[in-house]
Every structure is written in C-alpha cells, then in structure tokens.
C-alpha cells in the first residue's frame, strides 16, 4: 500500500473484475498518438508480413476484405489509464494472415504508415487474440483512430494495437518499437501493470 494522502477517499466510480489495476473506465474513445494523423488512400494501401528469411506476404485492401471477417467485441486498456469495455470491431484475424507463413521467429514488430512501430512476441498475435481491423461500431474506422486499418491486440496495452498498420515484421530478436524505445514496457500486460520499462 502507498503513502496515504490525508482527506483522499476517491470516487470509486468503477471497480470490478474486468478493470485492470490503475485503470478507470471511460465512455469516450480518447486518442493518443505522437504526430499528425496519416491519410492513407485505399487504392495504394497494402499490408505486408515479412519473415526473418526475407519472404513477404502482401494483401491489397480488396484482398484483405475478401478474407474471412471476424467481429470481436473486446475491452481495451490504454496506458494513459483509461479503459473502455465492449468495443466492437470488424477485421481479419492474424491467425488467418499468418496461416501459411513459414517462420521460426519469436517476435513481431508492427509498423505503420507515418513511421510508428511497436513490438510484441509473435505468440501474442496468434490464437484468436489479434486482428487487423477496419471497422469500429459498424462504421469504417476513422483516421484518428487508426483507419483505414489498425492492429487490435486487446490483451495488451493499447499502444501495441498499432494505428495505420501497414505490416508486421517477424524477427528472431525482440526489437523495441517507438514507445518501447521511449521508456515504455516491452510487453505491456495491463493486468500486471507493465507500463514502463522495468515494471
């Protein structure tokens, strides 16, 4: 337990088993990004998975939309301490995209239009836990929330769910991304409150 601040009792507007430690619930959908919002035209958009051997697997927008679609409804948790319950998305599972990708890599680094990067273990992209999503609440994903398509990895802090995603590089070594290089945690499990390096 921390040092008590006299007179503080707290509002405790949200508690419960679904809220990770140190988070509060919001009904809004706040935006956090480090620079201007890229505008990515769909006719040149593509998503690329590259492996440690240099093999590349590419999808155009139309090819992505032609893949089996899933509609995950998930809770999301931002390291800036807001959580939002029951968000509804549509997109393609990374299991589908990784099917047929032959790799011995243990890590993945997602990269985005605009230059953003973030790293995570490849296993965390598998088993129905990660998607490339293009719709939110039944509407095309707005650019400020990462449209035309973003990664969705809801079991990790939301900075791992790279906006404006353009690909995933599979790597043998863990290569820290944008916020990870700036002092944020390599893994980012909200249930273990892995906010910053060393947590």
């Amino acid at each position, binding site marked *: 337990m921390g040092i008590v601040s006299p007179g503080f009792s707290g509002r405790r507007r949200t508690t419960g088993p679904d809220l990770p430690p140190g988070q509060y619930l919001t009904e809004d959908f706040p935006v956090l990004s480090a620079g201007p919002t890229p505008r990515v035209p769909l006719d040149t958009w593509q998503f690329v998975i590259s492996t440690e051997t240099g093999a590349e697997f590419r999808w155009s927008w139309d090819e992505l939309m032609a893949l089996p679609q899933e509609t995950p409804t998930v809770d999301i948790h931002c390291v800036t301490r807001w959580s939002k319950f029951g968000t509804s998305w549509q997109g393609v599972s990374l299991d589908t995209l990784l099917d047929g990708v032959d790799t011995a890599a243990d890590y993945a680094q997602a990269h985005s239009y605009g230059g953003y990067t973030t790293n995570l273990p490849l296993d965390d992209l598998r088993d129905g836990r990660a998607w490339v999503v293009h719709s939110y609440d039944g509407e095309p994903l707005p650019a400020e929330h990462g449209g035309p398509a973003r990664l969705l990895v809801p079991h990790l802090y939301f900075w791992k769910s790279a906006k404006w995603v353009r690909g995933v590089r599979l790597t043998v070594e863990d290569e820290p991304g944008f916020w990870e290089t700036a002092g944020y945690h390599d893994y980012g499990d909200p249930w273990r409150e892995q906010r910053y390096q060393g*947590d």
Partner: protein
Amino acid sequence: MAAPTTGRRAGTPLMWRVARLVERRVETPTAQTLILAVPGWPGHLPGQHVDVRLTAADGYQAARSYSLAGPADGERIALTVQRVPDGEVSPYLTDAYAPGDPVEVRGPVGGWFVWRPEETAPVLLVAGGSGVVPLMAMVRARRAAGNRAPFRLIYSARTPQDVIYADELRTRARDDFGLDVTYVYTRQAPEGWRGEPHRIGVADVNSHGWPPDLEPLCYVCGPTGFVETVADVLVGLGHQTRRVRTERFGPTG
C-alpha cells in the same frame, strides 16, 4: 516519425517517490500550479510528464498523469492541474491537498514530446487550453538555459480569464528575446481585440507560425480535436510530419 532519441531502457524501474506540497498558485478559476518537493527526483526534460498517485486510508488508489510545468529544478517539480468537475484526482489536488501533505509521484515519463535546451532550430508551440503546460516548460527552459532558438507560441483559450500563466507570458513576451506569443480566443476575446472569437485555423497557424522551409520543430498540445486540426494544418502548409510532435489530452479527471 523518427525514433525517439531518448530512452531509459537500461535504467532501473521507475519508482514511486513521496512528494509534498510546498506551494500552491492559483492560475485561473479552474487551474492551479502545485510546487512539490520530491526527495531523490532525478530531473527531467521539458515536455515530460509524471504519474501522480493518491492512496486513501483503506488502501484504495487512483493515479493520473500530469505534465511538468517547469524545467528541472533540483528536487522540486511544478505541476499545473486543471480541475475536472467530476474528476477523481484533480479536485482533490486543487481543493483538499494541503501544504506538507504527501502524494506519490513516478517519473519522468515520455521521451518523444520533449525539447532539449541544446536544440537550435526554430520552435513553434501550439497550445489548446491546458495543453499549454508542457509547452510552458519549454518556454521556461529556453530562458533558463540561455538558449537563443527563436520560439513562437500560439495559445488558444476560451476567454482571457482562461489563459494560464497570463502575467508571466506577458512579461516573457517582452523580456525573453526571440519569443513571440499570439493568442486565439474561441468564446470571448478581450476588449479592443481585433477580429472575432474563433477556433484556430489555417490563417492563425500560417500568420503566426514559421514557414516550413525553416524546418521548425513543432509541438502541438491540447484536446484531441484541436491537435488533429493543428497537425493537419501544419502538414497541409508543408511541414514534415517528423517535425510535428503532438500530445493529446483526453479526460484526465
């Protein structure tokens, strides 16, 4: 977007430190600056922020992030807190927190939205509301370091009464050589102001910012809609996206 140049990957875990209130300054009817004494504070760069944690007698905790309002100053830090009416942390800090009382802080945090006092490029700061706080840390750090980089601050506020640091900015605009300050008012402008209250737009940024060919560093901080607008305007005017750094404020009650 280039990779950030600072990091503390090899560092020890950030630890919670006890901070005690030394001084409180009322900035506006809803914003206050808190000066905290933090034994062991490791120092910070302008633009970085800190997590503040409150603990109730029964162990319940709540934490929020606040921008540091001033440059590194030994074991003292300054936070400017905007009171969020239905918030959990900010009303305690502005209304109940008394001199000598402890809170816990952890930081500094953030290695991207920072300005280094050794930078020489022109700087454009664009603030919306309480988004001025980390930008003020840069303005103060510039003078403290004797840095001569030309700075321009465009500050959008609802009314003149909502301008944080108003007196200090007036003095600095006069005395800090190479610092220009321009205001945009969205609801009500001061007496004798030329033009109507309006939301910031292309003309404001074009007239009071820097031309893109000077390759200024641009820092934009404020509510999401404000930051989206200004960042789009800067890119539209020809600024390189990698020179435009943004920090968005969501609700941080």
